[in-house]
């Protein structure tokens, strides 16, 4: 029987926790199926650290050392995964839905003509094959997905970031085999990463966060959230929409490509509550949301929601809090 093939992503010389979580999940499934897990790793120094993947349940690693840039690009990784699929005929290809992981999964599915199940949050065995569970429509329904692949490899499963724990399961070492995949004719080039812009406030340490989304309307409107955060002894957190638009610093961003936070209290103001934001703050003790759209997904997981204008509600809230303390 074929193995389960996992793309374990490297970033800044380390394997990412999201992709290690997928490897751990694959190991649990492989145990049930009496098969094994093979990982693909790509990047500078990848083969050197590859043996440690044994402790995450990986049996064999196919490694491509080095990359054209400082980090491997999507096309380079896809070349490696495609070569691994051709050599190993795995049952299934599994990856974490990071920005790079999603590009790789798409490229691999397209090149090999495989079905792809996206945004999966769990996987299990049904009648001897792997199936995945995925929420749909802002998590309001749950769907079970499988594949109808014609060859030995059923398809590609892409998992929502943070779906699985990445704790090492044992101290085993994996067998590492170097591979040299055939290169794509046309590549994506990794051109570099921006300097970190951390401004000193570590939002992961705050007990209270006032989350500010695009509903703030512009970079000069943040006074209301800043002074509320101050009244609560907390800090301001943001969404990607706010940061990509240049309204606030990246170091304050919560979510899949920002920070993961778990304050005692998270007050979301003008935030729609997209899944990529939710991933970063769903473990908060209490979530309060203020949004003028009653259908905003944030209300599906807020403990207390107010349908209203944040510019009306927040100043009064700040005043009430200052008066009560």
């Amino acid at each position: 029987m074929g193995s389960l093939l996992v793309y374990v992503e490297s970033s800044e010389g380390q394997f990412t926790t999201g992709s290690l979580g997928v490897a751990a999940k694959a190991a649990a499934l492989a145990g049930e199926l009496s098969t094994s897990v093979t990982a693909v790793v790509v990047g500078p120094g990848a083969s050197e650290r590859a043996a440690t993947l044994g402790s995450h349940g990986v049996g064999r690693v196919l490694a491509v050392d080095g990359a054209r840039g400082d980090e491997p690009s999507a096309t380079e990784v896809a070349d490696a995964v495609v070569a691994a699929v051709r050599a190993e005929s795995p049952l299934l290809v599994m990856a974490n839905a990071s920005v790079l992981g999603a590009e790789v999964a798409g490229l691999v599915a397209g090149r090999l003509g495989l079905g792809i199940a996206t945004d999966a949050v769990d996987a299990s065995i049904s009648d001897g094959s792997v199936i995945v569970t995925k929420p749909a429509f802002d998590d309001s329904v749950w769907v079970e997905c499988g594949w109808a692949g014609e060859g030995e490899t059923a398809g590609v499963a892409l998992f929502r970031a943070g779906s699985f724990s990445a704790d090492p399961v044992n101290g085993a070492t994996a067998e590492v085999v170097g591979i040299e995949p055939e290169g794509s004719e046309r590549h994506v080039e990794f051109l570099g990463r921006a300097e970190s812009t951390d401004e000193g406030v570590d939002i992961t340490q705050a007990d209270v966060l006032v989350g500010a989304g695009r509903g703030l309307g512009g970079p000069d409107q943040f006074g209301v959230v800043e002074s509320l955060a101050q009244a609560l002894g907390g800090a301001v957190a943001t969404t990607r929409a706010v940061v990509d638009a240049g309204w606030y610093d990246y170091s304050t961003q919560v979510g899949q490509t920002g920070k993961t936070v778990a304050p005692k209290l998270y007050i979301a103001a003008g935030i729609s509550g997209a899944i990529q934001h939710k991933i970063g703050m769903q473990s908060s003790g209490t979530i309060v949301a203020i949004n003028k759209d009653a259908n905003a997904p944030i209300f599906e997981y807020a403990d207390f929601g107010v349908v209203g204008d944040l510019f009306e509600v927040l100043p009064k809230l700040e005043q009430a809090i200052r008066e009560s303390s």
Partner: protein
Amino acid sequence: MKIAVCVKEVPDAGASRRHDPAADHRLVRDGDPALNPFDAHAIEAALQHAEGADGVTVTAVCMGPASAQRSVQKALALGADDAVLISDDALAGSDVLGTARVLAAAIERGGYDLVLMGQQSADGECWVLPGVVAALLGWPVLTQAASLSIEDGSVRIDRQAEAGYEKVGASLPAIVSVSDAINEPRYPSLKAIMGAKRKPLEQLDLAALDLPAGSVGQDGARSIVRSVGDPPPQPGGTVIEDDGSAADRIVEFLRERNLV
């Protein structure tokens, strides 16, 4: 330079949601379908490039039922020069791979230099499509662009990844998806809405794309929905409408939880 922007019609995000076991497990929403809001940013990015350079055309490319014409008209009203709508009964039930095959065939046929897409589809929670289409064309793919520059036959983007902002680039032709904060999409004027009706809209069926039967639609689907059900129960929160007293109600709630 020819730019194509892939657009999709999606159910209205504001409407109630349900799944219809009678309709072959297909997920349906009430309310009128509309242009995927994320795609408006891709159209805007294309228009901004076209306005700053000579000889750039922008074509909206859509796969969908005949009714998706409404969303294609919206793309034209926003400023696309023309549009291609691929509609065929045989396309119903297409999965990501099938959809990508159709779009790739339409892109090949149109001979574009750059294809833009939105960051994701609002109804599918899916942002892998650019990669699948790129693979079928043998093109590079760059996703989630927070900024975009097109120069000398190549494209570079800044984008946020898990380890922070990074720059990636590729030579053209390429596929690029853009973040929903890359720009502020314009509102079409009444004149633009009226004018859109006169812009060329080419309707294609499967035969025009020369795709083998069975490679798309329900028959070609390689990822399949086995069952649809309710999510695990979540302890529902309280939601109130602000009548002027919301701030006090929040404080009351926080006090019950010893948070103030």
